[in-house]
């Protein structure tokens, strides 16, 4: 999938959000989109998902099956979690993502109404519908925000699996959790351009860090560090 010289603004006369931005994503690529607030990360994600059309430039070779999880899941809908996921599975013509709901730790939420969910729980519903059906392009807007430690770790694993299947994953991520995924490439959106800011260096020498903290918080921190790809003993 390739975005070439893409320029976008919401209305004529508005400042350009993106100007001549390019991005090349091979099958199996995992792209982390970073940048300060308001620089156009969500706009870039919507362009890649096909929800916005570039004013100039081209986005080509977009995979047919797209999963999209918005930053804020629209929970103001009159369905239970199970009914919503059933509807979305039928719309996508895929099986109800029962395995995903278990892995994201949301089975206990299935009978709850969407408007009653907490922010994190609603976010899991948004992720589950996007992940269902083996998407060839997975667009995640701040996917780790509000998730518990276990779900964050599991989401990293799921993203790795999708990439291993040849799916393209593009996610904005302020928390940096996506860096736990092997081979992730980091891009920054700034001044209307997309710049690759860092590559994962495979031969970065390892070092040992000793952390002192209250025992009650040790398990949570260890899980988080493992989710980020660190070795914890």
């Amino acid at each position: 999938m390739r975005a070439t010289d893409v320029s976008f603004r919401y209305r004529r006369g508005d400042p350009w959000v993106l100007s001549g931005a390019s991005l090349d994503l091979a099958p199996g690529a995992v792209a982390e989109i970073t940048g300060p607030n308001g620089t156009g990360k969500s706009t870039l994600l919507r362009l890649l998902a096909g929800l916005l059309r570039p004013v100039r430039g081209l986005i080509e070779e977009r995979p047919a099956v797209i999963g999209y999880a918005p930053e804020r899941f629209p929970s103001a809908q009159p369905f239970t979690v199970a009914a919503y996921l059933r509807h979305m599975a039928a719309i996508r013509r895929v099986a109800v993502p029962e395995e995903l709901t278990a892995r994201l730790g949301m089975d206990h939420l299935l009978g709850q109404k969407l408007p009653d969910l907490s922010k994190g729980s609603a976010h899991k519903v948004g992720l589950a519908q996007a992940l269902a059906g083996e998407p060839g392009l997975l667009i995640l807007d701040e996917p780790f925000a509000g998730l518990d430690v276990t779900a964050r770790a599991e989401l990293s694993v799921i993203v790795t699996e999708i990439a291993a299947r040849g799916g393209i994953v593009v996610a904005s991520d302020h928390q940096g959790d996506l860096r736990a995924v092997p081979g992730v490439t980091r891009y920054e959106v700034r001044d209307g351009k997309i710049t690759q800011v860092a590559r994962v260096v495979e031969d970065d020498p390892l070092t040992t860090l000793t952390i002192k903290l209250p025992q009650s918080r040790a398990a949570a921190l260890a899980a988080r560090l493992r989710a980020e790809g660190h070795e914890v003993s």
Partner: protein
Amino acid sequence: MIPLVTFRLSGYVRSHRIFQPLLGLLAVLSIIYATGVPAGGELPSYSDSAGILMLVFAWAARGLLDNEPDEQRLIAITAVGRRRELVAGLLAALLLTAALALVAVVFPLLVGFAETPGAADLGYGAGLHLLAVLAGTALGALTSRPVLASPAASAAVLVGGYVAILLLSSAGPWASVPVLDWMNAAHHHELPDRLGVIVASALAWSAAGLAGYAAVRRVRG
């Protein structure tokens, strides 16, 4: 596409917003048929019902199209594609307004008409309601959130648009959706003679309205 139509209709009904146009529908029907319709007055009553209920159909269509949050519409577009999402929304709105029209056609058979109308009048009455369904759905779509983001502007344009259609239709069958024309024709027993022009004009205006909605959605998502 059918699962998305089902999802849209289910969300609308479960949100209880269907009661708004349903109350409007029952109010209009109660007024039209409160004193009963003597034999021979069935088709004029049907034509009045179709003309007035076009506003209720537009209200219902707009309510259904605006019922789901914007982010859910984006999720649906990624799931089925832009064109299918648009068509599914319109199809759901048409099914809803057609169901309301069915109530409007059946209601007087039970409580309003002194005599059951003949098959021809029943057919004409149903046909006029179908024209109102198409025109009302187009008006509702043109005032839905992707086109008019402000709820106040949307409501004003919906009611104002309906009034404008009524006023313009007095100028001739092609000036707008020919609502007054079909009412006049039905009241003067001229509907079979003028039906061709009325149907052609109503279909053309409805198609133009739906095409305008599709064009705006193509730009604004």
